[in-house]
């Protein structure tokens, strides 16, 4: 977590506005910091896609929660129900051990509704589902050498896969975008580890949900947005642009 106050103080030092009223939190710093957060989410996405950076470094944003899969072995992530904006899946863990021990998955109300279970916690699982492309998903359901096959069921060789988020909805199947897990786990607990999107900053007493290590990157990028107000190619813009590019090269 990075205190917003610390970021603002560092920004003021850079632009030499300590004690002045030229830059205000609500009008200048807050929008710049929020823009920097949004921009960082985009940059990290690119880094994830290229396997250059692991979401596991963003430990302030990692959550593991439990769902009960519907009868088609699918799970819907609904931000309104979970309370977190969704960024990316980090792990899908079928057959979890849960706490309280002995908790049973609640009954699903119909074939297609998966349930978010906030009252039970994930403890452990021996399994991890691999992400599979849509084409591989169909072709490899009986391929014993691919994750997510329906053939190998013995301990140690059983492997799970999940299919990326797809909207299967119809007038008789009223669910939004879902992931699907194979071998099927209908009506069973499935633990999902995901990255939540960082919350926007509202108050100067808030914290930014990124690791301390990227404080400089956030400060420089926020300054970069403030520099835009000063007109293109100003000194501040050029300096911060260079710094940001250098930091990005380190990530990529």
């Amino acid at each position: 977590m990075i205190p917003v106050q610390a970021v603002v103080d560092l920004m003021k030092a850079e632009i030499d506005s300590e004690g002045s009223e030229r830059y205000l939190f609500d009008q200048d710093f807050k929008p710049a910091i929020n823009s920097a957060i949004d921009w960082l989410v985009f940059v990290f996405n690119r880094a994830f896609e290229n396997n250059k950076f692991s979401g596991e470094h963003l430990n302030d944003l990692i959550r593991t929660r439990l769902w009960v899969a519907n009868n088609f072995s699918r799970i819907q992530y609904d931000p309104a129900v979970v309370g977190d904006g969704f960024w990316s899946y980090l792990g899908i863990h079928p057959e979890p051990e849960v706490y309280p021990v002995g908790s049973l998955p609640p009954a699903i109300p119909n074939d297609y509704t998966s349930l978010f279970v906030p009252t039970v916690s994930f403890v452990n699982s021996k399994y991890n589902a691999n992400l599979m492309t849509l084409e591989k998903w169909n072709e490899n359901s009986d391929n014993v050498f691919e994750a997510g096959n329906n053939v190998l069921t013995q301990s140690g060789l059983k492997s799970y896969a999940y299919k990326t988020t797809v909207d299967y909805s119809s007038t008789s199947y009223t669910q939004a975008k879902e992931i699907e897990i194979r071998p099927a786990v209908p009506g069973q607990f499935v633990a999902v580890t995901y990255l939540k999107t960082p919350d926007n900053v509202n108050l100067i007493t808030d914290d930014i949900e990124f690791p301390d290590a990227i404080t400089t990157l956030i400060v420089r990028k926020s300054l970069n947005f403030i520099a835009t107000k000063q007109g293109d190619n100003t000194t501040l813009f050029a300096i911060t642009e260079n710094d940001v590019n250098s930091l990005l090269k380190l990530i990529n």
Partner: protein
Amino acid sequence: MVSNTILRYVVDDIAKDLKQTFKEKSIQKSQIAYYVMIVANRLKSQHISKISSGAYVHAFTDLPVHIEPIGSNPNNIAGRKRIVLPNAIYDFHKDGGIDYLSYWDREAVSVECIDTPEFTRRTFTRTTPKESERLYYDKYEKPSASNPYYYRQGKYLYLLGLECSDVATLEIGIYSTFDPLTKIDLDAEFEFPEELLLILKRQVLDLGRFSLKMPQDRANDGIDSTLLSGANDQKLVSVNDPINQTQQ
């Protein structure tokens, strides 16, 4: 010496060496286990064929004797007594994958020990359908309940000499191959010669390296990448390599 290890250790060791223990791995554990089975079957069959030992004999008792009814399959010869091999076996010369086949003659009198079941083991002799013709011309070789024969066709062993006997079950000792992939138990004892584990590992690593050598851009993973895998080239193994010299 039979191995002290279990299959899981062998598979996990090789997976670790091939750096295939993470989520986006290219080689599934099932595939490494399959590699191990392929190589282990070859090495073990060579070992058994060279060394006379009972270390790898699997014995099965109470195998039921069937008489195949008339059916539409021409490969099932109706009316002959036979048993089904309980497991796949190594296909050694002259059906050497079968160590012995016998039955208990419950009517024979036990002389030495009245505490044991009153039986005498009757051991079958191997023949072939063609050779069996000659047996019937020699009164000392003629198939009978006390001098039975068998011949193999696929997974069946047909029995000669029991035509007028009511023997219901047999005992067999065989050199089984490893279970198929869908049945193997990673945590079971790995019945493999300990002294050959090094060669097994080396040959499986070669198979794994071959898989990893495939260009990544042939995989449909949605990522545009022109970089090829950095796996080492597989070394060609000469027929004079110590691996081949010692095992063939």
